């Protein structure tokens, strides 16, 4: 019954395409099948170099899953394909790149190692310099491989790097290890490991009443130093910018383990901040195959439009062209709710943005008081 409650509108799951988390032997088997299929067509009576069918990671292939019995909506990818073909001259290299990464992943799986995307980049840079020149290409190709084999990066042996941090009233225990008290981890907090397996097995205990997601590391440090989590019993978590999968996963686990704790987000008042909030809340297209599950019901605490009266006029800085691009893409998403859309409209109309640091104008401990007041007034949307 609990699972039924968590699931969505009953038929939309059929449209859902997801990347499975599988063991290394199954991942190797999938790679072998992909290679054998390719060779079979190459060896057939009418030989051809088959195109690679990849799940398309575009807006056109994304669907929205509105939780009926839960409050969690998320974006997921459906079964529309795009192809990588050796036949198209401009795209031939992309085709070869996919196979090179598949080869590298197979070797990693055989050796039972785990590598980060950066380490994979170094290896590919040195072994196939004519195909790989920058990290971005490697990351995109890894996503292609995920879309081809329909299994998560982790199953291929690619570790996420540790980026996020968590602090506050949370006790974390890895199995057979000592318990870590996050509030005693200093102002940078406890680093969130990139190892998804480890995060899966962590045991968490808390006496907090709220979970606060912070966009920027500087704000996170400020709040940790001022020990805001003791004044308002809470857990603070940050991905130091755009959320990575490990931070999203930990937040998701916390939301499952402590379902009564509201999750509140503290982001800058600009389209990028809202985009970060939406990624935690709904998921993203880029990682849609793997991470659609990790959407959480995050509420927008601040900064919002009505907080602008608290900051001086001079702290409002003009929007950059990149912000307008982000705003445009957010607006075109059907998952954005009415009041978020209105806030976005106000941002774009005024052409300005404000950072959380602007609140320091009223004193360094104003931020803590601001958060406390908003929480007590339940002023989050």
């Amino acid at each position, binding site marked *: 019954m609990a699972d039924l409650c968590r699931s969505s509108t009953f038929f939309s799951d059929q449209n859902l395409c997801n990347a499975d988390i599988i063991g290394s032997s199954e991942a190797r088997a999938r790679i072998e099948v992909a290679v054998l299929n390719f060779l079979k067509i190459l060896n057939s009576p009418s030989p051809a170099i088959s195109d690679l069918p990849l799940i398309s990671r575009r807006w056109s292939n994304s669907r929205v899953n509105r939780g009926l019995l839960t409050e969690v909506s998320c974006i997921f990818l459906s079964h529309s394909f795009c192809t990588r073909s050796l036949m198209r001259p401009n795209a031939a290299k992309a085709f070869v790149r996919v196979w090179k990464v598949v080869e590298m992943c197979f070797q990693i799986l055989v050796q039972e190692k785990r590598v980060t995307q950066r380490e994979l980049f*170094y*290896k590919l*840079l*040195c072994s196939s310099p004519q195909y790989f020149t920058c990290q971005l290409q490697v990351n995109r190709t890894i996503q292609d491989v995920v879309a081809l084999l329909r299994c998560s990066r982790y199953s291929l042996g690619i570790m996420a790097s540790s980026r996020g941090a968590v602090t506050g009233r949370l006790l974390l225990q890895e199995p057979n290890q000592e318990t870590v008290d996050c509030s005693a981890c200093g102002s940078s907090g406890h680093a969130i490991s990139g190892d998804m397996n480890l995060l899966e097995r962590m045991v968490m205990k808390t006496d907090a009443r709220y979970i606060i997601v912070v966009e920027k590391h500087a704000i996170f440090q400020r709040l940790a130093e001022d020990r805001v989590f003791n004044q308002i019993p809470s857990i603070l978590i940050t991905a130091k910018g755009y959320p990575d999968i490990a931070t999203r996963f930990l937040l998701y686990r916390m939301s499952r383990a402590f379902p009564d704790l509201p999750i509140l987000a503290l982001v800058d008042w600009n389209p990028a901040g809202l985009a970060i909030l939406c990624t935690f809340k709904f998921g993203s297209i880029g990682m849609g195959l793997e991470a659609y599950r990790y959407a959480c019901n995050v509420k927008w605490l601040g900064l919002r439009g009505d907080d602008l009266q608290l900051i001086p006029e001079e702290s409002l800085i003009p929007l950059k062209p990149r912000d307008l691009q982000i705003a445009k893409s957010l607006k075109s998403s059907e998952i954005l709710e009415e009041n978020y859309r209105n806030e976005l409209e106000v941002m774009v109309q005024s052409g300005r943005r404000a950072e959380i640091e602007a609140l320091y104008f009223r004193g360094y401990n104003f931020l803590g008081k601001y958060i406390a007041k908003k929480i007590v007034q339940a002023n989050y949307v």
Partner: protein
Amino acid sequence: MKLAGLKSIENAHDESVWAAAWVPATESRPALLLTGSLDETVKLWMPDELVLQQNNTGHCLGVVAVAAHPSGIIAASASLDSFVRVFDVDTNATIATLEAPPSEVWQMQFDPKGSILAVAGGSSASIKLWDTATWKLIDTLAIPRPESSKPTDRGGNKKFVLSVAWSPDGRRLACGSMDGTISIFDVNRAKFLHHLEGHYMPVRSLVYSPVDPRVLFSASDDGHVHMYDAEGKSLIGAMSGHASWVLSVDVSPDGAAIATGSSDKTVRLWDLNMRAAVQTMSNHADQVWGVAFRPPGGAGVRAGRLASVSDDKSISLYDYS
């Protein structure tokens, strides 16, 4: 062709600067100058103002050589403690640490494709080849011992390998020894091909011409710079003029000129058509250990640059045109 002094940094390092190499430009940043010094640090400088980008510490003895991967993403530094540290240029994250027995790590260079790192093996009288994807030692190219030597005369200090150079097609590797001989190896077959004779004193620096894959330049303590046909085993020309040991030689990307640094404290620019020095720069106060031309490439880069580093702890940058 001429050199014009652009910028000098005094006290760039706390001690003599021994090694210099350019890190090729990537999509996100222009070419950087990498310098290594006796003060055990490796520094990265942004041209043209020579702004210090990074200061890498961690070696235990002086840094004797630095080299950059052709992609511009990775670089390596070698020190007298016989460790080679391979690191990511932008983040200074260590990618690998290569160990060797004492005094077996001298100059090094990545091959033009970036798949092998060749390290001059010093007292081992060989070149060590490391695979850059897995950082394993794939081969050791040994200089064959002369037939007439006694068994105890284990190359000793005679064939001590100081310098290496890759041919632009990556097929040939040249190394220079302390007895003045240059050995040429065929890399694909891992075979020693032949010696190039001519020098009688240590050959400290070698470089192949980028425009002619057979032409090799060598700089020696005998004060001369030789130009060899490395395949035909013949000496094409010799350029003299330095008053003392020639410590370093580099060829310009257009292949028309070479620059040399010497212990007579000068940097000379030689025109290859005339086989003569056309310019002498005397701004250093002590031996010039390294000269390096900036590789072509990078956004909006039109002008050539030459860098020189010296025992007087300074770095100089010249415009080459």
